[in-house]
């Protein structure tokens, strides 16, 4: 009965990541491997945070404690993954060279932002999946939410927030890795702060009810503003600029001009 809702929310959450995977990752096996590996690291972070949550018996019922703890652990594991990826760089380079005589460094390794982006997306996809998959399972039928007085926009909000965290992780991956490369600790701190901000914003949603659906806007709007900010920062970090973007937009015409 609620199949349409189910598919709608699935497309919202996983549409953009799917497009990114399809056009930028799927064609290169090395990127797929790194994507999976970073997903695995996020899972390790989840495992650690659940152990901590489980061990802290008196704090189990306090959602905020679990959230803060989990955010910190996720960032620690992102750092660990960065370390390992950089250590494995030479090895990865070796296996991706197809002939022994190949002297050109593959683009993926010459441009370090690519692996940063891939691992950020891996983090994001698995985080987003874990945040939405239970909700999706309930959404598949036969009913929708609301009999206990909850807002009917819960599913839609969950889907949008999951999409947001996926894309945020992607941006943070780029910023975080580049900041570590250049030892810019302030930017590392900013990523952690942004993550903490996003996580704590979602706590606002607890106040929602069927008569009070506007509460969701209180977390959705700041979250997407944060995404916009992070997106711009990551774009600039990766070497993009407004000028380049304009050039790309007119490139078709430009191509003929060059001819």
């Amino acid at each position, binding site marked *: *009965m*609620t199949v*349409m*809702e189910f*598919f*709608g*929310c*699935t*497309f*919202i959450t996983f*549409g*953009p990541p*799917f*497009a*990114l995977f*399809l*056009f*930028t990752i799927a064609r290169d096996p090395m990127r797929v491997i790194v994507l999976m590996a970073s997903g695995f690291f996020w899972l390790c972070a989840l495992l650690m945070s659940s152990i901590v949550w489980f061990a802290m018996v008196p704090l189990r019922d306090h959602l905020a404690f679990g959230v803060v703890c989990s955010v910190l652990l996720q960032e620690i594991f992102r750092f660990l993954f960065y370390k390992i990826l950089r250590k494995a760089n030479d090895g990865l380079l070796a296996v991706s060279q197809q002939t022994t005589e190949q002297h050109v*460094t593959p*683009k993926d390794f*010459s*441009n*370090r*932002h690519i692996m940063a982006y891939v691992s950020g997306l891996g983090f994001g996809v698995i985080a987003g999946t874990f945040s939405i998959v239970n909700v999706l399972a309930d959404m598949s039928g*036969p*009913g*929708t*939410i*609301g*009999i*206990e007085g909850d807002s*009917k926009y819960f*599913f*839609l909000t969950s*889907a949008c927030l999951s*999409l947001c965290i996926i894309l945020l992780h992607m941006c943070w991956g780029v910023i975080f890795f580049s900041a570590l*490369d250049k030892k810019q600790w302030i930017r590392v701190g900013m990523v952690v702060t942004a993550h903490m901000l996003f996580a704590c914003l979602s706590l606002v949603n607890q106040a929602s009810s069927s008569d009070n659906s506007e509460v969701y806007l209180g977390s959705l709007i700041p979250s997407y503003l944060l995404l916009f900010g992070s997106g711009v920062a990551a774009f600039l970090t*990766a*070497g*993009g*600029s407004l000028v*380049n*973007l304009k*050039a*790309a937009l007119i*490139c078709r015409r430009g*191509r003929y001009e*060059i001819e």
Partner: protein
Amino acid sequence: MQWNSAGSGLMREDLGIPVFALSDESDVFKVLHKCFFKFNLREKNETAREYPLCAAELNTKMYAAIDTETCLRRSRHFSFLGKNELCDPMGDKNNHVTMLNIPQNETRADDSVIVVGARLDSASLFTLEYQASDTSVTGFVSLLAAMEALWKVKDKIRKTKNAKDIMFAFFHGEAYDYIGSSSMVYSMTQGTFPQDLDHGLHLHKIQLQHIHQLVELNQVGYRDNEGSLWLHTDPNNRKTKLAQIQKMIDGLQDATQGLNVTLQEADATLPLPPASSQRFLMEQSDIPVVVVTDHQTQFTNKFYNSRLDLPELINATDYSPDLSKADKYDHVTKQAELIAELSTALARYLYQASTGAAPDATTEQTLTANSSTVTHMLYCFLVSPNCELFKETVSPVNAESLKTTVLPYPFYVGVYSSQQTRELSTLVYSLMARFTGDKVDLSESDCKENENDKRYSYLYVQGTLKGKGQEREGWCLKSLVHKSDALSPAFIIDGYDWKSGKYSTWTESRWGGESDSIRVRLFLVPSKQLQVSILVFGIVVLVLSLLIVYWCSIHATHIFTNRLTGSGTQSTYSPMF
């Protein structure tokens, strides 16, 4: 003749949807206040409420389909996992006890057994919901009380020369086309009643020709203003056995003298109302039969076989509000008094019919049913089985499960199992052993059937409390009480024609297991509008992101100036790259 005009036949209707009964107040509250009133109830001038609407999903998986014949045939199929049983025949155990212990090597004269019977069960759609107060409880409790009274003078009857044997029979499964009585009649014709043994000392066979007369108690709880009961006979039966029937009616009416119970003869042209006796008459039409009920034409019980056949409606729970639980148990209700009078009359009649002489004054005094036992039985069967009478009368094994029981035991016959007996039948069996048996001095482990003399059954029950402690005395009861299968002959006879309609062919489906067990879910159904908008939004997000990412990926080299770290070389954009 339509006996139960108040009945709607709803139980036999195929509704095509699962039906659930919610008896727990909190469940009902949830359905009404969290679901129906809040989301679905229409205002006066409203045509329909707006979405979201509240809906419920009911889940009951039953394996059987179509009819008994089909499901039994399918049950015989073997799969690699073994037998795939889909349904089970309904039935349980009948209980009976005889006054005389005639072994198989003595003679039992024809027309020498007086059979008194009553049914145990009621039809039921939801196992624990049907209390069957008048449908069956009044009848079999009256019979049990009469039994208790009669066995006080058992020695007198047994000593009387040529005294007729008296058999008390309790039929189970009668609500489903007379499973119990047809089963007993069938085993009588097969010569396997009461015991199917061919060696050792056992009871003499009782066959249909041995039956001298049959008195049956039906519903006796709803009496009219004069408090009278009706004696029904069968017109065909009257043709052949008029003299004997008249004698029975006179005898029964004489027995009520001085008692607060009136027995009136029903119109002789009326057919016999639905009763277990029908099964005996079908097989042998010349057994004189009298059926005692509380109605002449229409049922006075408007809730025959119904969920509303409650003890409140037959004054079986007329407690004043300040009574404690223990006082309620001991309070002699109006119905209990009425039943005790009837039982006394029945016991006196049976004494007279068996010995051929009216009881003398002292015997008559002894032959009085105990109204306090009757009220205890009504309390235990209808209000709470966790009562002193049942505690005393169950075996130590069953005592544990009795402790945790709150609701009265179900009056639904359920499916037949050769090993297990329903609580109802077990309790009636134990009560019969208690009322008719002798306490013998045997320990719990020694209290079992004697290999050489199988006429007697032995039952170990908890007994009364010892002094003030929690210890119970423990009685070993030696009695002539026996149980026999109440399983429709349709499932016994090889090649029985299922369409013939001769015997009951009721089966109950097997139910879904753990994963798809019985459950109800309440939830909201969202409006189509909201669903479609979410879907459209999702599709738009998907398509847009595909387009944007595709565009970005082919222009990546334009957008991102590759600032290669490490090597320091700056690669520039080249359209030819």
